[in-house]
């Protein structure tokens, strides 16, 4: 996987054939601008669903929900 020169990012390695498949997928299906974006999206999906299990919410999302509930007068 191509390294991006940004301090908050790290590089990881994946198999070439998987990378090529991901690239082809993006070219054909759209929705992502790069393999990095696709991988980040998939990781976020897996990890956030792991964290949030049943409710499907990260801590950050939960705060956003609470903000809305407060704004609407529910809490």
């Amino acid at each position: 996987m191509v390294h991006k020169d940004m301090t908050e990012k790290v590089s990881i390695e994946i198999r070439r054939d998987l990378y090529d498949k991901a690239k082809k997928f993006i070219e054909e299906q759209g929705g992502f601008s790069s393999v990095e974006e696709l991988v980040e999206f998939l990781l976020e999906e897996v990890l956030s669903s792991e964290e949030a299990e049943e409710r499907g919410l990260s801590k950050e999302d939960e705060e956003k929900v609470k903000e809305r509930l407060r704004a609407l007068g529910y809490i």
Partner: protein
Amino acid sequence: MVSRPHGGRLIDRTVSPKRRERLLEEARELPRINVNESIAADAANIAHGVYSPLEGFMVQEDYINVLDQMRLSNDLPWTIPIILDVDPEDIIGVNEGDDIALYYRGEPLAIMRVEEIYGWNKKEYAMKVFKTTDPNHPGVAKTFKRRELLIGGSIDLLKDPPEPFENIRLWPKETRVLFEARGWKRIAAFQTRNVPHMGHEYVQKAALTFTDGLFINPLVGWKKPGDYRDEVIVKAYKALIEHYYPKEVVVLSVLRMEMRYAGPREAVHHAIVRKNFGATHFIVGRDHAGVGNYYGPYEAWEIFREFPDLGITPLFVREAFYCKKCGQMVNEKICPHPEEFRIRISGTKLRKMIMSGQKPPEYMMRPEVARVILEHSKPFIGEDEA
């Protein structure tokens, strides 16, 4: 502890703001299917987890299982097919595996991956879901007007359809946080398509007596002519809660979902949906979701026996009536007096009173509730509007 979502995981098929812009562009290049209000509401309900574990409109295997077994193909209870109907000319050139864009009111609503295109038999659907093919049944009549083919497949919701009641519309992820924030562990959900009368208040307060909180979740969206308008239902409930409920134990939030009038099957569907909102208990009324005389008065109770694995507890609260001798709302289990002392609150009688501008007596309806209904120039849906 609030209920676990149906199937164990709350589905989220909404897209992040980051992806939304790009997908909106992409949607404009895809084959386009225009959907009506009810389908748009179903798409939003799928995406926000109201219909968990569904991630899209049903493929044929689930559709057939739901019709025949009242279960999804993974054996989870599910009683009402969630389907997307199209005309053959809408999908010329569309193949299984393609993406299509669902449009609502001229705007892209969702991207759908077409997993399956299949035919359906509307009479069979009507017979199994509504237990009748009588076109006078409003659900049957609506089914017969639907399009000829069904498309199954997962969706990604690009944006919520417009919601006039946005300020009192909560999604399951929100009610779950809310119930936990209030410290509620036992939550009784109440489904309604009506304005509240004293019988409803009695049933709700009976349920609230042994739970921590009451979740009043009126349906807004398509209903049959003669039913109350959405805004009238909402205003009536706000008035009732303001004057007669401790606010800290009640949550009022609307759900945009069409009424099917499918009686017992719909009662189970209503329970599953409220389970996804986090409710632990669901109040099942006498002739719940019924219409006319198509269902027996307690059929909607009996069907729950078939679902010991539902994951939400049905509360079968008996019909309430006013007893002149008791001097209050009671039910037949707690009132020893004969029929001559009992005044039953008939929805039809209430409608007639309201239509003629007459204020219902206080044993039938709270005056504050009656006032907001009578203030409305057209509280009922007209024949030409549904």
